[in-house]
């Protein structure tokens, strides 16, 4: 059967290695090109960004970033000349386009909202998930299988299918456009994933460790903290990344439920396009900055993540 060949341990030939290498490099290029495009565009001037044919080589400019963080108003050249000397790079660039800076844009607060909501909900989901998974793994919970199935069943439907009920509910409860509301929502969506993933990891940790610690004089909570958690770090890291990616990228609920104070970056970034022409460099700058936290988080946890994912995948 084909199953046996899948497990064969014959060393790959030089030729098949070369083919595999080529495929991987090609795939990586295809995946990375859009990111490079966005990154490059964020450093172009608006005219360069819409030049045709596209400019591969160009004079880098921070204008996109200036435009991302500010709001500007168009003024007559006379008015601009009447102003004092420019106070910095952004001021100068803006004046060249016959505009003056009116004030800071909403990007920074929206970005901070994204950070608070994504990390907050990830923390809640992983915290609740770890404790519930430990409970399901170690104790005789009545109807454990049904409960676990129920938890999983909350993901059977795409979350957006319940968007309207949630919208109405949130309006009644005063949770619309609040960070708390978004944290609760993302936690609710992520917690089922967290429980299921973490239960698998915790099941793999022999219970003798806690029993040994409890005999050695520790309470169950201390035993959990000192023996189970350190061994579950890979699982927790992997789970945290999955939760964070979801919460960070989520667009539909954010667009529906947040509009002002609690608005996150994903629904905000597209709105940049409209302000004063199609400002692609500013959009690209917003997207680039938006990518940074998840990139940093993933790089920091890459070791645990890799071990965690393969560990979960090749369970006996």
């Amino acid at each position, binding site marked *: 059967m084909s199953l046996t060949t899948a497990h064969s341990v014959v060393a790959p030939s030089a030729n098949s290695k070369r083919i595999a290498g080529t495929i991987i490099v090609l795939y990586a290029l295809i995946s990375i090109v859009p990111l490079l495009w966005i990154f490059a565009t964020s450093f172009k001037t608006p005219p360069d960004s819409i030049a045709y044919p596209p400019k591969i080589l160009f004079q880098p400019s921070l204008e996109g970033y200036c435009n991302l963080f500010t709001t500007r108003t168009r003024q007559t050249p006379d008015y601009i000349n009447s102003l004092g000397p420019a106070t910095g790079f952004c001021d100068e660039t803006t004046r060249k386009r016959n505009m003056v800076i009116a004030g800071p844009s909403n990007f920074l607060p929206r970005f901070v909202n994204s950070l608070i909501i994504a990390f907050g909900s990830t923390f809640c989901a992983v915290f609740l998930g770890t404790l519930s998974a430990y409970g399901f793994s170690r104790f005789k919970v009545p109807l454990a299988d049904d409960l676990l199935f129920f938890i999983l069943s909350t993901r059977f439907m795409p979350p957006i299918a319940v968007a309207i009920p949630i919208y109405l509910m949130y309006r009644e409860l005063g949770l619309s456009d609040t960070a708390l509301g978004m944290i609760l929502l993302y936690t609710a969506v992520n917690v089922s994933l967290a429980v299921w993933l973490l239960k698998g990891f915790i099941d793999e940790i022999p219970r003798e*460790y806690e029993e040994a610690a409890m*005999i*050695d004089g520790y309470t169950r909570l201390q035993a959990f903290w000192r023996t189970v958690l*350190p061994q579950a770090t890979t699982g927790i890291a992997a789970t945290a990344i999955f939760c964070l990616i979801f919460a960070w990228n989520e667009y539909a609920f954010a667009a529906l439920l947040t509009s002002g104070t609690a608005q996150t970056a994903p629904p905000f970034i597209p709105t940049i396009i409209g302000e004063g022409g199609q400002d692609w460099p500013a959009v690209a700058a917003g997207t680039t900055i938006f990518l940074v936290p998840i990139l940093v988080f993933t790089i920091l946890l890459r070791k645990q993540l890799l071990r965690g994912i393969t560990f979960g995948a090749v369970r006996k």
Partner: protein
Amino acid sequence: MAEIRVQHLRKAFGDFVAVQDSNFVVEDGEFFVMLGPSGCGKTTTLRMIAGLELPTGGQILLGGDDVTMLRARERDIAFVFQLFALYPHMNVRKNIGFPLLAQGMPSAEIRTRVEETAKLLRIDHLLNKSVSGLAGGDRQRVALGRAIVRRPKCFLMDEPLGTLDTEFRDLMVHELRELHNRIHATTVYVTHDQMEAMSMADKIAVMNHGVIEQFGTPREIYDRPATMFVADFIGSPPMNFLGFGGGLAKGAREIVVQGAKVAVPEVREDIAPADMALGIRPEHIRFDDASKLRGAIYGTEYLGTTQIVAVETADGLIKARVPAEIRLATGDHVGLTLSSARLSLFEKGSGRAVRTAIHDVASERRARHG
């Protein structure tokens, strides 16, 4: 150190009774082994003594105090797990010191105690190593170190040698017993390996289906098995059984097996007619052509100084341990002579041993103690 007293201990998991009405006393400083096949309830009993399972009924007294319902950490005991349960994220020093940390002991004192313990176990050169790189025997020593360092009331060990290679196991059996002789810690040791039990134990409890079949010294258990299960479980090869019928009268000294008269230790009780069994250890059989009890050689197993000979009798195969020099060929007819003073008699129905003269010594001693 303390004595352990187990009274009417019972544990049921739903309909399944894992341990029923266990009673035994492990005296202060004794090395006590619970022996039995897997699923016999020995580990469950141990876990109840440790406080990792709560009994369904009965009492556990530790040094005179009722600890039946206490949490594990309130019992002041140490447990060595089959898989050692060494914390992989801590080095050897931290692993051994972990129980002391729970007591809030100052770190200077922890250091001294850990180093003393490591020296005792000859692992002081490994203290700063990671536990994941250790060999089986050293892991075992670290696990023991974590138990000893506390100076607890007693040690509980759940098949601690189960995962070691045979070579290491013999070494560790010796080391464990030597350690026990030095520190005289009350120890409860669970195993399914009769060799471990026989070579280490002061007292053994043989368990089966949640019942203690026999409690006694290794010698008592080997020489005077209380039930057919014990007779069959202990000894390699195990005790042979030859069936015979009819009752037994007090004072009888002879039974008839397969038409041959066999002298047995004097019977001390009356037994109504029933299916009976005569129990013979392989080493208590000699070949003697004059004997009326006969069989044909079925096969031999050469062991160097002795050989195990399987003999086909009218009542099935029995195995004899005879000197290796004797030349035997498969198919030969031989007569069997049994060492009368060492034979056991059993009731087949209940499996219980019949009281005979071989029990006299034990009952005399018990009477003296009482």
